[in-house]
């Protein structure tokens, strides 16, 4: 279990990257307040997923606009999947179970 910081570090509807034990993890704060965590590197050509746009379901990589399911990490556009990590908010703190 790791505390990444305050949920307020991530603006509503955006993502930010956190380094955890040499892994880069993109954490997104959905508009309903819930959070999701995925591997930060786009499997297509290494794009920064945390810079992508999201909705309740998907993140769209900013480089070539392929998209991934925020809950499962599965690609919605025929690419490889990305890893997903369990993450939650406790008392305004972002907690990654890892």
């Amino acid at each position: 279990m790791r505390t990444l910081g305050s949920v307020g570090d991530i603006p509503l509807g955006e993502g930010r990257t956190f380094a955890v034990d040499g892994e880069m993890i993109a954490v997104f704060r959905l508009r309903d307040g819930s959070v999701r965590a995925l591997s930060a590197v786009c499997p297509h050509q290494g794009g920064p997923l945390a810079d992508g746009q999201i909705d309740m379901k998907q993140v769209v990589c900013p480089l070539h606009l392929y998209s991934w399911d925020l809950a499962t990490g599965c690609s919605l556009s025929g690419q490889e999947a990305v890893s997903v990590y369990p993450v939650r908010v406790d008392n305004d703190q972002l907690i990654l179970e890892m």
Partner: protein
Amino acid sequence: MIKQRLVVIGNGMAGARTVEEILARGGDFDITMFGDEPYGNYNRIMLSNVLAGVEDESGIFLNDLNWYADNGITLHAGVRVDRIDRRRRTVHGSDGSETAYDKLVIATGSSAFVPPIKGAHVPGRGYHQGVFVFRTLDDTRAMIRYAREHERAVVIGGGLLGLEAARGLQNHLGHVTLVHAMGHLMNTQLNERAGRTLQATIEQKLGIDVVVDGMTTEILGKHAVTGVKLADRRVIDCDVVVMAAGIRPNSQLAADSGLVVERGVVVDDQMRAAGEDDIYVVGECAQHRGEVYGLVAPLWDQAKVLADHVTGANAAAAYEGSQVSTKLKVAGVDVAAMGLQSPEHEDDELLEFAEPKRGVYKNVIIRDDRLVGATLVGDNSKALALIKAFEKGLPLPEDRAALLFDLGGPAAEESVADMPDDEQVCNCNGVSKGALRSCVDAGCKTVSGVMDKTRAGKGCGTCKPLVQRIVDWANGGEAEEDSAASYYVPGVPMPKPELMDAIRLYELRSVSSVFAKLGGEEDAKSKMGLASLLKMIWGAEYVDERDARFINDRVHANIQRDGTFSVVPQMKGGVTTPANLRRIAEVAERHGVPMVKLTGGQRIDLLGIPKEKLPQIWAELDMPSGYAYAKSFRTVKTCVGSDFCRFGVGDSTALGIAIEERYQGIEGPGKMKLAVTGCPRNCAEAYVKDLGVVAIDGGKWEIYVGGAAGAHVRKGDLLATVGSADEVITLTGRFLQYYRENGNWLERTYAWVPRVGIEKIRAVVVDDAEGIAADLDARMAAAVGAYKDPWKERAEPATPGQFRTSLPLTVLPQVPVRA
């Protein structure tokens, strides 16, 4: 019982269609097809669209190899039949094969006719390497490949094929000249007035040079083509030549095999070769009642008769010849012609209408109360009705003018319910009303879906309105909306005008409120378009949710392949100062910027900047953003103009700077790139900009709109000629505002202007026909007033971690460093 063996020579449009018709009648044959071309069967007429870049190669295939397999047809693709042995009833292929037949179909089509011109061929090597014909997919591919690497083409032949070739080539190279041996274009179909009207349109609207009465005598250049020479000794420089001087039926094989051949292979009304019981001929290689056709419509009818007869489905079926009409497949240039060009008998009635300024010429010729000829140039609105009256010999309205014009009131359109099922709707692709109806019945409910499936409407396009009506009717009223196609963004099911009304009605000022009220679910791919629209509508009242922005707009820079960004400071009109250059140089040096580059937009780009460094670099540069990242007003390119240039007739630099000063940073549906140039030599490339201004003699300025020279190349349309720089600035703002309010998301002006039509735009923007000019000006002024330089957003991040790095995974930069 052993099946009868049916062999088909030629796997083109007629051969394949005949087999389809035979299969549709349950014909039980063992079928073998030979095709000289190494493919399944494709729609040859669409090669024009492939060349013009409006259709993909993959979209023109009619039957792929699976179709042959599924129907038990043996296809020898890439094998030519060299000989028919009528006595032994066998055909002999170029691969050494020998195949026996009980019934034979010859469908060898035509080849391009190449007049005997010196230099067209290189001894022993076929065509000179820069010389092409336009008949097959391979011809088209080779032409595209070569044209892309060359600059000037000459097309020999000003008929349908030559015109389509010339237009298509413009998609790949810069300059096209059309050389026609006769006195006017399309002389087989059009009379002289029509041909001249067409020529003016081709020259002015498309920018193709046309030479008539031009006999080409020689192709110049030894290793590479350097030009063509005409009989009057004129030389036209070029590096590509396309021959479109006509076609000749492929009848040699039949002649060598002892069949009766005149211009084509002579056939009877059952499509059998003269005097033969088991050999049929169909398509362009057939000569029926003295006629040889060069269009597809006749072969749809021929194939039906042939199939009826060979399968015994209707042994009495007879082909009686076709009344053909032709249409030009060049976007924006309407031409349709049928029958006579001019009256021939004394008592033929002629109705003629000409409006050369608009490029319109129309006529109809009537004999004994029947339509025997019609020509439409520049306005095809009556084409469908005329073609029908012509082909079927329908009775004509008493008020003859109704043939040429819609005379008020709803046009008396025949009810589609009353059309017989087998009536052909799309002549280019041979699609009947019945086929459209079954497509809808099978579950395809939208017009574009039906068009994709049946290919109806995908040739010359004339029948599209009728296809629409039939699909509507088959759906029991209205076709289902091609939903997503008309939406402004995919996530909110509304076209732009409706969406704007709803946004105003419910006072939706943020992207999330639009989803909540109108969209149901939030959609990542729709956010950016909505953000742009809301900002345009509400200006300062827009509630800016940063997550609605694309990353570039969140950090005011353009993301690059390795997650770094590029920084392009404003440099109005491309003009800078030594002090500014020094500052840029110092910042670049201090931060080890990997590359400093002059852009195509006349400014300086600092590439490879990590996100977290952006605010510092802006602060040190202390220059406004050049907006090289957003869907917004980008640059105004200028030339040196009258202050320095010896040809300059207007101060293009000053005007360009003034325009950029005023409209900097304005956002819109797409990028807006402008230019102002000091004379028609056009060094600032103003003819190919979203809005381009050209100084002309007498202190005047021409304003062109809808030009492009990116993924698409298009010369802008002249919007207006005005007498002062102030008028240019006003009209620029009004035009941009009209585009901002009406363009679809990501629709650049090169698509929007032709969609709306320059006449309409001119009426609104220049002549204020709708009385909205003042409102447009006011809304633009408000947007201008709301401009804030985004690079000022640097002392305090707008959101937490706005400039925090998103991927320090690899050691940056991944881009090469060119210092």
